[in-house]
């Protein structure tokens, strides 16, 4: 087994913040190494160091060798030849990683032609085939779309297509499936598994994915590697306490369902026959009706691109509604005056799917979290409240004075969640609020949500691709497929006795955090 990419005592520091300390591991051809660990533990930073793409404020020490060639401090020419061609990268936050002014197709084509000359037609064919290979069924439309016209999952898959376009020796996949529903995720995992010649560095929080794909696992915490072992051994006999805690926190598809609260008279949210059409062509939401009673968490699951985020935005009056009505707190959003709309919005907490772009780059994290408080109350102690909120989402309150770009993906996601919770909303619209969180932090955040929810009884639309997460928090579940609600009911009923074939497929595709069982499932599937 040849070592393609070796990390040897790599440390990364941002001023006095030591993001990674003495990290050592190696990737081998044809094998998948999973890098797991706490959110903010330095996973992304370590991986990015290999590409020499950390911001100038970072100092990298140690050694990273690609087939023996040193990358740390390598001249720009060397790094450029490596990037894209020998190391492909899937970045963690797909939405902000795309250039907003070019179509997806053009950006992939650019990546393809950096390292290989192709004619126009050949280039186009290649782009389209790459897009279909990642499970996008309308490659033409996707290629012609601008980033803002696509859903999070679509962008993520396009990003994967771009990363593998150069047939790299090494693929760095930073949370490649965070925005994907389990059916699509299964397809992507199969695709990655198929890249037999490539060494893959897989960064993920999803132990199911790890179990499915990884050959070796490295566990990081607070910048250091705490354990590294072959996958099966790690799952069987985790050596480190943190690893054990991590595995214990993996949510499962078994156990108690949250008890549905007594439904009160008027639902907080009432959606009737909602349709949303983008650009006169893309029917993103098609006649959806949905109620969210007070005190109820409705989980919205469904295929990537099925319109989940669109519905979430519609609840805050942010989507171009073409038909139907959305009533929130008794106010019909379509006909509401600006003032009413604003009044409604102050009572909605909104977590956008892409935390990186949802934060003002010129404001500190603390400022962003304090914003709703400053906007709507004359509270003088915003600082204490901000500290409280950050603490609640398990962030060190000292992060408050950092800027968004100085945080890790999971940290940003929690900042956005903290902001949404700041005013104790009557309705929380959470679009993939925990997708970037490792299971232990995720468990904590879910517990927080559940307890807040019990305490304040807010209604919640919880959009997630992770059935286990939905199962642990949602009282009711709606399943969305191609813009329509195909099934709706209590969590217990939908997840144990699914009626619609799509729901069944969803349930079947969810990976479990056990390498042996995953392997068995793969064998029976193929």
């Amino acid at each position, binding site marked *: 087994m040849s070592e393609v990419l070796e990390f040897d005592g790599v440390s990364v520091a*941002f*001023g*006095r*913040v030591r993001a990674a300390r003495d990290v050592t591991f190696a990737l081998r051809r044809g094998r998948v190494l999973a890098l797991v660990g706490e959110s903010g533990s330095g996973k992304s930073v370590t991986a990015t160091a290999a590409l020499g793409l950390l*911001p*100038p*404020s970072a100092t990298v020490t140690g050694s990273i060798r690609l087939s023996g060639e040193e990358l740390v401090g390598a001249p720009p020419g060397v790094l450029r030849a490596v990037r894209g061609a020998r190391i492909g990268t899937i970045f963690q936050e797909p939405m902000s990683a795309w250039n907003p002014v070019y179509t997806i197709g053009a950006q992939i084509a650019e990546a393809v032609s950096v390292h290989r000359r192709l004619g126009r037609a050949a280039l186009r064919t290649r782009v389209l085939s790459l897009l279909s290979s990642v499970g996008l069924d309308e490659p033409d439309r996707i290629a012609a779309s601008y980033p*803002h016209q696509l859903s999070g999952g679509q962008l993520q898959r396009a990003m994967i297509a771009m990363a593998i376009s150069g047939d790299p020796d090494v693929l760095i996949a930073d949370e490649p499936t965070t925005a994907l529903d389990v059916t699509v995720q299964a397809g992507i995992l199969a695709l990655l598994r198929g890249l037999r010649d490539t060494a893959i560095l897989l960064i993920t929080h999803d132990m199911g994915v790890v179990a499915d794909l990884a050959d070796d696992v490295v566990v990081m915490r607070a910048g250091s590697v705490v354990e590294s072992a072959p996958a099966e051994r790690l799952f069987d006999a985790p050596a480190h306490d943190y690893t054990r805690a991590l595995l214990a926190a993996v949510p499962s598809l078994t156990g108690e369902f949250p008890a549905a609260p007594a439904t009160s008279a008027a639902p907080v949210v009432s959606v009737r026959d909602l349709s949303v059409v983008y650009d006169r062509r893309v029917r993103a939401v098609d006649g959806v009706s949905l109620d969210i009673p007070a005190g109820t968490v409705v989980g919205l699951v469904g295929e990537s691109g099925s319109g989940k985020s669109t519905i979430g935005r519609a609840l*805050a009056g*942010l989507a171009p509604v073409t038909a139907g009505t959305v009533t929130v707190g008794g106010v019909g959003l379509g006909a509401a005056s600006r003032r009413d709309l*604003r*009044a*409604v*919005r*102050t*009572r*909605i907490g*909104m977590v*956008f799917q*892409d935390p990186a*772009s*949802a*934060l*003002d*780059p*010129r*404001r*500190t*994290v*603390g*400022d962003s*979290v*304090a*914003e*709703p408080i400053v*906007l*709507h109350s004359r509270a003088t102690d*915003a*600082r*204490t409240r*901000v*500290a409280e909120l950050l603490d609640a989402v398990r962030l060190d*309150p*000292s992060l*408050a*004075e*950092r*800027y968004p*770009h*100085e945080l890790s993906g999971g940290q940003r996601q929690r900042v*956005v969640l903290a*902001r949404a919770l700041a005013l104790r909303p009557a309705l929380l619209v959470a679009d993939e609020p925990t997708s970037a969180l490792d299971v232990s932090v995720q468990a904590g955040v879910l517990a927080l949500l559940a307890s807040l929810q019990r305490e304040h009884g807010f209604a919640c639309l919880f959009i997630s691709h992770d059935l286990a997460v939905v199962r642990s928090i949602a009282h009711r579940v709606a399943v969305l497929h191609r813009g329509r609600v195909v099934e709706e009911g209590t969590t217990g009923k939908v997840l144990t006795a699914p009626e619609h074939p799509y729901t069944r497929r969803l349930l079947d595709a969810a990976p479990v955090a056990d390498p042996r069982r995953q392997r068995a499932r793969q064998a029976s599937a193929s």
Partner: protein
Amino acid sequence: MTEMVFSAPPAAQRAHVWRRLRRDRWAVTGGVVAVTLVAAALAAPLLTRVSGHDPYTYDLDAVSGGGVPLGAGGGIGAEHWFGVEPMTGRDLFAIVLHGARTSLLVGVGATLVAIAIGVALGATAGFAGGWWDALASRTTGVVFGFPALVFMIALSAVAPPEIPRLLLVVLVVGFFGWPPIARVVRAQTIALRERTFVVAAVALGARPHQVLWRHILPNLLPTVLVFGTMLVPSMIGMEAALSFLGVGVPPPTPSWGRSIGDAISWVQLDPMYLLFPGGALFAATLSFNLLGDGLRDALDPRLRELRR
């Protein structure tokens, strides 16, 4: 960044910016020069008392019969530190110093007026869209397409003499300076308003003015700083043009713009006449720009710890 402060309150942030600004050698240089110039302008009467010449008294013995300053370098010497003005023999040091009062006031004042109108209109138009955008855009078009010269000539006739000329100049020059700013700001605002973090603020129920103030404006600031600092010299030039049309500060009140305008044709015979007021304008502009750049970079969180 390492102190365990909770959410950084504006004051702390300001301190932060200030600290970074102070570390920028160029910005500090710019600041020192700017402050010196302003101080010199304020103290002009005092300083000219020291130098012994006011900017109004003719000294025909210092120039030849044809009006050319006698002596080297346009008459530079212990008597006249910057030499004298051709044709009049007035003391150039006093003229440049007193000119700073007019020019800095007009340059900075008019720039502020232009920026205030331009940003207010551009940002609200871009953000609100709809009829307000249409109205504001049309107004911008009208003012921009409007023959400023005609207006100024008309104004010179109708403006009652009671209105202080300096105020009038600041307003007029500022007024015709805003349309480009408004257009650029509008375009950027439209781009910004689609950004998720702005949408997020809207979704929080922020009022339009709050969104503008808290998210749009800070992100427009770099652009506005650039325009602000680049506008100052052209405003000073405009002041000179205005006084030519009779709306400006009437002669013999000195101003850099007028001195520079007069000096151009003397550039070969008496380059010092151009050099001093021109150099003063250049120093002022450069210092504002250095300061502006420093501020821009200090305010940009992404450039925070970038070391050279």
